[in-house]
């Protein structure tokens, strides 16, 4: 955009803010510098119209609330104006500690998708008279990252538009095509999910954003196509199956002296004996404890319960067999 175009657009904004009456394109052309043309020359007039369309699009892109209407019931031609009340950011009386928090919050996006939006939003707050100390720190900061599907999905949830995407779960072979009425997006334990009504399953479902193939989300149909359930608790739909595991089981293991530090730190009891240290470990799921214990190889042996002991031995046998096969194949091939 050239300097003259920028100048023209600033003047257009000022002109439309200052008018109560809707101004037609012709009236604007006669007023705002930069739109001078001969309306009787079709080519010149067409060039003006194109220019004016581009400028309107530019302002709308920026978020300028351009109103259209007619000055009176007798006018056929549409006119334009900007209502100051719609244009202006309302007063935000932020205390210094609140302003600092906003400044820090805006910086959270520095590694992620909304960085530009955060800094232009912050620029508007400064313009509204809020002083934001760029050096302020809380001594503690979350580092925020989002998946590419975040933008389109939040927009679709806001507009209540149905979306479609290809979804790939690691234990499936091919992506499946899904259609969803998105209620909202959830960040749970630093992973992003979208929650909504799955049109194919006809049930509430949540999807992990990182599994949406290419981050590609297409909108289907018109805005306002659905209403999320009243008072829906988005988090509960995600956290339901990711909740903490109850560890009421107890296993006793024998650990070689000085080894398996990772087990020692979550043992409920430890006793030293001549053949090593006995640890009592809390567990929830037998299989996941078994897999963890197998990691320590001969440094850890399970004494009880038998189900864990047997699971560990079974795993060790299979691992040995598979790696023996590999070694044989490598030696012969």
């Amino acid at each position, binding site marked *: 955009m050239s300097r003259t175009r920028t100048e023209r657009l600033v003047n257009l904004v000022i002109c439309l803010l200052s008018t109560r009456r809707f101004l037609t394109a012709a009236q604007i052309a006669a007023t705002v510098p930069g739109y001078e043309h001969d309306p009787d020359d079709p080519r010149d007039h067409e060039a003006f119209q194109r220019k004016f369309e581009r400028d309107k699009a530019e302002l709308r892109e920026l978020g300028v609330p351009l109103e259209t209407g007619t000055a009176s019931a007798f006018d056929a031609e549409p006119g334009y104006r900007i209502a100051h009340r*719609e244009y202006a950011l309302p007063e935000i009386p932020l205390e210094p500690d609140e302003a*600092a928090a906003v400044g820090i919050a805006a910086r959270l*996006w520095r590694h992620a998708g909304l960085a530009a939006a955060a800094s232009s939003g912050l620029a508007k707050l400064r313009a509204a008279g809020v002083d934001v100390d760029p050096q302020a720190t809380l001594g503690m900061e979350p580092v925020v990252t989002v998946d590419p599907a975040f933008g389109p999905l939040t927009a679709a949830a806001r507009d209540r538009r149905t979306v479609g995407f290809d979804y790939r779960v690691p234990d499936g*072979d091919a992506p499946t095509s899904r259609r969803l009425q998105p209620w909202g997006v959830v960040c749970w*334990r630093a992973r992003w999910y979208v929650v909504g009504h799955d049109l194919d399953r006809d049930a509430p479902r949540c999807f992990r954003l990182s599994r949406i193939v290419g981050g590609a989300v297409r909108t289907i149909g018109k805005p306002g196509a659905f209403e999320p359930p009243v008072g829906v608790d988005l988090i509960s739909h995600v956290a339901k199956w990711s909740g903490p595991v109850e560890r009421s089981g107890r296993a006793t293991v024998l650990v070689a002296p000085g080894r398996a530090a990772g087990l020692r730190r*979550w043992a409920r009891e430890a006793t030293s004996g001549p053949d090593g240290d006995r640890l009592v470990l809390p567990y929830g799921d037998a299989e996941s404890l078994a897999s963890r214990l197998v990691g320590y190889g001969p440094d850890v042996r399970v004494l009880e319960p038998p189900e864990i002991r047997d699971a560990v031995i079974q795993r060790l046998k299979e691992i040995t067999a598979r790696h023996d096969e590999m070694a044989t194949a490598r030696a012969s091939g």
Partner: protein
Amino acid sequence: MTRPAQRSGGTARTSADRLARLLNLVPYLLARPGIEVSEAATDLGVTERQLREDLELLWVCGLPGYGPGDLIDMAFDGDRVTITYDAGIDRPLRLTPDEALALVVALRMLAETPGMANRDAIERALAKIENAAGELADAPVAVRMPGDSDRVAALHGAVQRGRALRITYYAATRDETTERTVDPIRVLMVGGLAYLEAWCRRAESMRLFRADRIDALVELDEPAAAPPQARLHDLSAGIFRPDQDLPLVTLRVGRSSRWITEYYPCERVEPDPGTGDADGAGREWLVSLRVTDLGWARRFVLGLGPDVTVVAPAELADQVRERAAAALDAYATLPPDGAPEPGAARSGVELAQGADPATTAGSH
């Protein structure tokens, strides 16, 4: 010769940015009468020259009529500037949906951060921003970051008091617990986990310590004094940036262990052409990742179980096989009931609790 970077395609964007900047500039200066041009430029993140060009442009803009009383006017007093006529752009433009979303979600993240000390200010700010953004603030985004608030708050307190710390730390890579003295710099939340970034006097380098692996913590009387060469970690690519010098491990992974590709940064993931049926269904995957330590890789692979075999390096494959075989031998010599001998001491020693056994492997 220097070439202007990011010119192509960026021009339209930067000029749209300029329009946004100009519309902001009048109310910004209006709120700060007599501000120094250099101070305003720094604050707005533009050069002084750019700011003066913006002011010159605004000076010829104004209300229809465009006479002396209609144009935006400003008074200069040395290096200070005051807007004397704003031509009606006395307020910044309202927030766009994306701007409202960015600020509201980030504030929710801050408020949700475990152990955050200024939660009250954050929540007040959030309420005010939501109020100003109107219906836009109704961001369809919910945030929850569970964590050990007390531990994070203790670390954060140490950072704020500027004291050195003596920590007992479990290093998962080497599976060992060590004592070290560190000079704390800041506390971070990355990927849902809290980290203490500190200068480690033992390693003589900057380290990120996972809060849930700090088993004990003593605040020392001496001040934290990280040496001048201490540099903060660059987190733009995540917490673990695999170094090309690290050993590359390739695994053949069955369906039930494919989840590892979502939890560990992998360099390559591809279906193994030699497995599965003719259509490729049920294929195993070849997964390559960099590891800092082969000992860790050995525990990792053994822990994953029979669904995973080591393709390379051969050294790791041999170690995995030997360790598994040695463990089986050990079971063969252990009495099957496994009951502790009658004479063994029963005075249990309570150890650190609350550490999550499922955080390194198997948690999905």
